[in-house]
């Protein structure tokens, strides 16, 4: 979400710059090389953005846009896009439809005196202009000084205070909201499965590590409590396997049938 792919459009002459590498040859006749297509799409923030780009690239008088040409070019993009990102293509289709509508209205016989309001292009131009104003400021914002990057707060050590500094209060609900957000974000990253974990196993893993701090070796059996029943034993066993897999503990047995011991993998040799 906040990870920038470092794609920006440089202005006049317009071309896409991808990770510092210019794709100058890219949009000469509006044909996009297939391998650059995805990158190209990510370069634009939607159909208005692309339209602005096309107009600039084509060096067109904005009031004399050849709607037919734009529409054709648009449809080409849309064709290419459908295979890649449908939801994105939908927005571009709306724009293409708008352009087609404008064109058809332009073909109809026009009244003698035409004012701006009747010009079907006026609304599109207004929207393009409106969008461009914000787009420009958005680009400027990137270069404005900001905390963490250009501005650093000056803060000094506190003297000894007569009153304890209170610590922030947190309630469990707040903590859960934070978790909900992490989970949602992690969900979008398919390689993470946070939710499958069983807390009891996690808790046991920490407990075993702690016990190993105090004892160099622990007997394997000591890690199980019969009173916990079968579920408890399983939890302990899974915890041991997880710790083993995570290179946190080692299992040692000096000779066949001798007692099995657990020790920290970071033991002093």
């Amino acid at each position, binding site marked *: 979400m906040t990870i920038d792919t470092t794609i920006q459009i440089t202005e006049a002459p317009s071309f896409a710059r991808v990770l510092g590498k210019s794709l100058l040859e890219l949009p000469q006749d509006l044909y996009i090389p297939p391998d650059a297509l995805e990158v190209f799409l990510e370069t634009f923030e939607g159909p*208005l953005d692309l339209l602005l780009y096309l107009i600039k690239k084509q060096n067109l008088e904005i009031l004399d846009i050849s709607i037919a040409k734009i529409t054709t070019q648009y449809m080409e993009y849309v064709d290419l896009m459908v295979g890649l990102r449908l939801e994105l293509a939908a927005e571009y289709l709306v724009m293409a439809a708008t352009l087609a509508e404008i064109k058809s209205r332009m073909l109809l016989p026009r009244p003698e005196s035409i004012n701006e309001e009747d010009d079907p292009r006026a609304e599109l131009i207004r929207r393009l202009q409106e969008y461009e104003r914000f787009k420009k400021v958005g680009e400027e914002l990137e270069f404005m000084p900001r905390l963490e990057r250009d501005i650093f*707060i000056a803060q000094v050590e506190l003297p000894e205070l007569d009153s304890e500094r209170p610590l922030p209060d947190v309630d469990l609900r707040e903590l859960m909201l934070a978790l909900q957000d992490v989970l949602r974000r992690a969900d979008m990253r398919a390689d993470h499965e946070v939710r499958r974990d069983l807390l009891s196993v996690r808790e046991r893993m920490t407990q075993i590590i702690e016990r190993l701090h105090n004892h160099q070796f622990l007997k394997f059996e000591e890690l199980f409590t019969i009173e916990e029943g079968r579920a408890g034993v399983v939890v302990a066993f899974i915890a041991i396997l997880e710790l083993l897999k995570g290179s946190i503990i080692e299992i040692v047995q000096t000779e066949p049938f001798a007692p099995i011991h657990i020790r920290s993998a970071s033991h002093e040799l």
Partner: protein
Amino acid sequence: MSFNVNDLKPIIEAVLMASEQPLSVTMIAQLLTSETVPNKEMIREALELLQEDCAGRGIDLKEVASGFRYQAKQEYAHWISKLWEERAPRYSRAFLETLVLIAYRQPITRAEIEEIRGVTVNSNIIKGLIEREWIKVVGQREVPGKPELLGTTKEFLDYFNLKSLTDLPALSDIQDIDQQAIELERQLQLQVVTLDDNTREFVTENSEAQ
């Protein structure tokens, strides 16, 4: 005990330096309440003197939206950033464009943002902006569906080192279409950023829009 401005200066300096957040004149006055009836004029005077003291030093006393804070002079950011292992977060164009729209058109609904950008606003962007505490829900529009109205926060201004929304760069004007036909092409070529005096004009326009 009553203060004169020279007594006040080091106290205010110490308090500002110790605080994690910017402090407003009102907050500084409250801190001093128990000792004396706080005189805001004197506090302002002390702050001005402290600002002057920063000349030639490595730090500035800067007024941002939520108050005054000491910060390292920007010219030394280069050395300071070497202290940090982590790099400052980067924000995507979509993220910044959405933020800009909320800043300039607030209060604004998500649908209105989508209308101007011509593209759906990813809900992660809104969530990310709220999580950063740069925007918040300021109310809802009384139309069917009661869409939420979004606005920017003081934290947003603090983060971008601004005292008020009027310090944001001015939006270029929308001209009437005839003029625009002549000028647009030139503007597009030059990408002129007009940052001059129309800041104030922008504010008027913006507040009318509210």
